[in-house]
């Protein structure tokens, strides 16, 4: 059984590979037909590396306070109660986030309204297909 369903190959198994490649080729042809020119050039696909925080009265202040150290996705993917958001904001203030005391409650309201447990889950993007990148430190020999 393992011989036929070699674990090192596609999980579909050898016999399943042909249809997969076929469908992939068809999908590719359709993609190529509908895609703008940039998608076929040798440039990375133009998705933004980092995201923005949602619109609202506190957007600018939250951006300053939070995104200095990390990007918005760390926030966009959370689904927390107001109590949990309060703990997070207080922890981050201790860790250097600059929040005016007058904005403290409004910031927590902004986060707990936009990122409450009843919101649908955040759908993360994928990274692009592998390219031989120029990570110099990684490429350097180890001795």
């Amino acid at each position, binding site marked *: 059984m393992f011989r036929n369903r070699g674990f090192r190959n596609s999980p579909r198994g050898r016999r399943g590979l042909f249809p997969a*490649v076929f469908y992939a080729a068809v999908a590719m042809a359709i993609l190529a037909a509908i895609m703008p020119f940039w998608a076929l050039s040798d440039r990375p696909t133009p998705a933004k590396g980092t995201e923005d925080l949602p619109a609202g009265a506190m957007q600018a202040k939250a951006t300053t306070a939070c995104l200095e150290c990390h990007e918005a996705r760390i926030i966009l993917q959370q689904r927390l109660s107001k109590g949990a958001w309060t703990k997070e904001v207080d922890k981050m203030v201790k860790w250097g986030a600059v929040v005016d005391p007058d904005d403290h409650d409004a910031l927590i309201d902004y986060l707990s309204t936009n990122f409450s447990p009843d919101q649908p889950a955040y759908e993360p993007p994928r990274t692009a297909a592998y390219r031989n990148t120029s990570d110099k430190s990684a490429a350097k020999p*180890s001795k």
Partner: protein
Amino acid sequence: MSSRRKFLKQMSGAALAAAASPAMLTWALPLPQGQSVEVAGEDGMILRSFRFADLETPVEYFNSWLTPVPHFFVRNHMHEPSDVNADDWRLTIGGEVENPVTLKLAELSKLETHAVVNTLECAGNGRSLQRPQVPGIQWGKGAVSTARFSGPRLRDVLRRAGVKPCGKHVMFRGLDEVPGKVPPFIRSIPIEKALDSDTLVATHMNGAALTKHHGFPARALVPGWIGAASCKWLTEINLLENEFVGNFMSPAYRFPNQPVKPGDAVKPEDTHPLTALSVKSVISGPGDGANIRAGKVVVHGAAWAGEADVVKVEVSTDGGSTWAAANLSHERARYAWRLWNYEWKAKGGNYAVLSRASDSQGRTQPAAPVWNPSGYLYNAVDQVKVHVS
């Protein structure tokens, strides 16, 4: 064979089609919204965070015993060091030692090399499945991967400095760049685990020098333990009398001593530091929500158990009423996952397909998650829903 050649060989099936268009997506998997983000050295990974980088391995990549490096999950707590190079890098060993020493990479590579195939899993893997939800990176099921790590044994490195009898804990510090007033990512492990013959200062992964995402030029490799124990960009080792005191030893990476009612708070004194991983299996195919044809369907996945051995993986195709043993693949190593498969004669209908692993310590995956305030060690029985037509 180098990991890159191996990887390219594995890719060769799709290579012809891929050559025709850079938009051809790896393994023919659709990317959400038709968009993707370029991250150096990575391939089709789930982007949990770009800055700093946190990348999850899609479960459908759990189809090779060793994970190709571009598919190996990445967990960073801080920013990667902006300037790290092999010539200037140093590793200091100090604290409760006879002779503090500083080693260059060239000196490190003169020590005997040892290889360990290890399944590395983030303690927070599966956090997004906890209810109520808890803060942290909202990992799905894929903050886990397996590689052959190699480099000198940590105990040989420690021997260069000579550990004093009072040196009972080994602290690791990496070169992560710390933003704001965030506590640095420093943790410690007990001396017994540090002196284990399989604990490494790893410089290589799948036969190639570590990439920057994985801790170039050297990282700790603490096999069978939570990923956080295996400090990346290692630059300082300190021998301590007591466990290191800092955020990433407490309150982070601790688990309640007693079961907790979901949503309840836990006092710090009622917790202990996380060490070895739990027993766990994940279904890598068919995918959740898949539409499949009736007939022979191979349900497959991976199972691991930290320092224990996986002894059994069972599959249920009737929502957990009955279970049948899956086949375990022959590729195995003490700290590595086992791939498994199960041949299912599927008839039309809607199904919940479950997998559950048991290990040599008598542990079995629980039916429901063991909730805890930080969402660590999620290991409930895995489940995918499929429609058979």
